[in-house]
């Protein structure tokens, strides 16, 4: 705080946005130096929701530590669990049954849609339109109900286990997912009517928050943030895991480099996720939903790394094993942290109102940043 004040010149205004602030959607603390309404510097202060998940995981067994990762990026809890399960499977050299792989991918894509729906509503709320939030939650609720029925929980599912999934699909699953796809296709045009096509919204988004492709790479951004700058970074395409290499879907690239491009990437990604689900939902193979694994898992000595594409970008799980039942060291490479780091770069020189919009397009989930 003190050194930031030292950097300011006369007439500058230093305001603390957060840790309790309606725009930060969590306990993010931004120290903003303002000149009038224009931002001169943004400094994020982290650590308000640090729960030392990495250290906690070191004392948990390979079956147990997966559930903690649901609490990192809680909006794509499923995909976090998936990453950990994949990493453990890599170490165990377990072949996951095909049915389990398909179930996992469908769940991942449903999670991605749910996450993007919430982001859409929350971002419109940041811009002052409160109504889209409720429309987004209407669709998201159907996904949550599907999750509740099959996984038993709505947000922190803990459905992925090493070797497959915890339980088989609910008998109603396919019907419900098809119903959701119907609902989604019926309602998606409202998103364009209310927000995407709105002149006020477009003016708020176009040309603000410019992130050049070079910066996106050098800051280590991932996910829709880089794809909005035209940098191909979809892990599902570039380092395919599970059955993604057999599926037909497009990597969404927008070359606008601004907030609106990042917005469009997410909106169009939802369509691609629906496309993936449509390919799989009628073709879930019969078989086991879980591979046979030992009761006590022991990873061989060595280092294992697995990355997946969460709704926010690249999540890497790095496990160092000494051969015991618990990991020696776990490191998560979370997308939110790197995406937050560009905030100062893209926000400098713009107006205070746009900072909120930019944070919306970065799609920050604070527990993912702090862990």
């Amino acid at each position, binding site marked *: 705080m003190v050194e930031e004040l030292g950097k300011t010149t006369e007439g500058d205004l230093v305001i603390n946005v957060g840790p309790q602030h309606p725009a930060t959607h969590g306990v993010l603390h931004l120290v903003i130096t303002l000149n009038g309404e224009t931002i001169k510097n943004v400094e994020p202060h982290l650590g308000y929701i640090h729960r030392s998940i990495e250290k906690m995981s070191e004392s948990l067994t390979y079956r*147990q530590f997966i559930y*903690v990762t649901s609490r990192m990026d809680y909006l794509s809890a499923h995909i976090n669990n998936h990453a950990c399960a994949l990493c453990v499977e890599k170490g165990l050299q377990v072949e996951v049954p095909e049915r389990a792989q398909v179930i996992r991918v469908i769940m991942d894509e449903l999670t991605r849609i749910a996450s993007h729906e919430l982001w859409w509503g929350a971002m419109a709320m940041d811009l002052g339109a409160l109504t889209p939030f409720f429309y987004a939650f209407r669709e998201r609720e159907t996904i949550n109900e599907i999750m*509740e029925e099959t996984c038993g929980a709505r947000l922190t599912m*803990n459905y992925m286990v090493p070797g497959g999934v915890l339980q088989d699909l609910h008998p109603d699953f396919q019907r419900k997912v098809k119903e959701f796809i119907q609902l989604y296709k019926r309602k998606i045009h*409202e998103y364009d009517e209310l927000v995407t096509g709105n002149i006020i919204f*477009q003016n708020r988004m176009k040309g603000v928050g410019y992130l050049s492709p070079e910066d996106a790479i050098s800051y280590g951004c991932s996910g829709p943030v880089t794809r909005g700058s035209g940098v191909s970074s979809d892990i599902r395409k570039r380092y395919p895991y599970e059955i993604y290499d057999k599926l037909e879907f497009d990597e969404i690239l927008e070359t606008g480099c601004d907030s609106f491009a990042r917005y469009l990437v997410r909106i169009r990604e939802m369509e691609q996720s629906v496309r993936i689900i449509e390919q799989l939902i009628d073709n879930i193979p019969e078989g086991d939903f879980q591979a046979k694994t030992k009761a006590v898992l022991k990873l061989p000595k060595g280092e294992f790394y697995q990355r997946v594409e969460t709704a926010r970008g690249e999540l890497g799980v790095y496990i160092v094993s000494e051969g015991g039942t618990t990991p020696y060291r776990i490191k998560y490479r979370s997308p939110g942290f790197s995406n937050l780091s560009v905030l100062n770069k893209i926000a400098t020189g713009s107006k205070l109102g746009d900072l909120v919009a930019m944070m919306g397009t970065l799609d920050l989930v604070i527990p993912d940043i702090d862990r």
Partner: protein
Amino acid sequence: MFLKDYIKEVYGAVKSLVVGMRRTGYYFTHHKEIITEQYPDNRDTLKLADRFKGEVVMPHNENNEHRCTGCTACELACPNGTIKVITRFDITPEGKKKKAIDKLVYHLELCTMCNLCVTACPSDAIKMAQTFEHSVYDRNKLTKILNNPGSKIMEGVE
């Protein structure tokens, strides 16, 4: 030419706003689209999914018998130390010592409903209940003893 662009711009802007207002106006007039669930009122009709993970319970049959052998598999599987199995040794009619549970202590306040204990249990002694109204005024009430007082193990469960 400039004027034409200007008018076109204004027209497009106004049109986009009117489209948005038509959408909200539609929902304003169509009350059947309302999705609010009036929660405490609909308690009777509210049905949770049968897999919903609300809390861990131990089912007992009509003779006050459960299936828990006291093997502590659930205690080992739990990531948070939510379950504590306190065992005792019963003397069977044949005069042998047999391990049985005295208390199976369950800390609801620590539980994250991860379902690992239920899958770990070899004798299906515990399961997830679909309750969800867990709030109490005293934290001690969240520490539960799952086996009923005076209960004993079911015949034939090893």
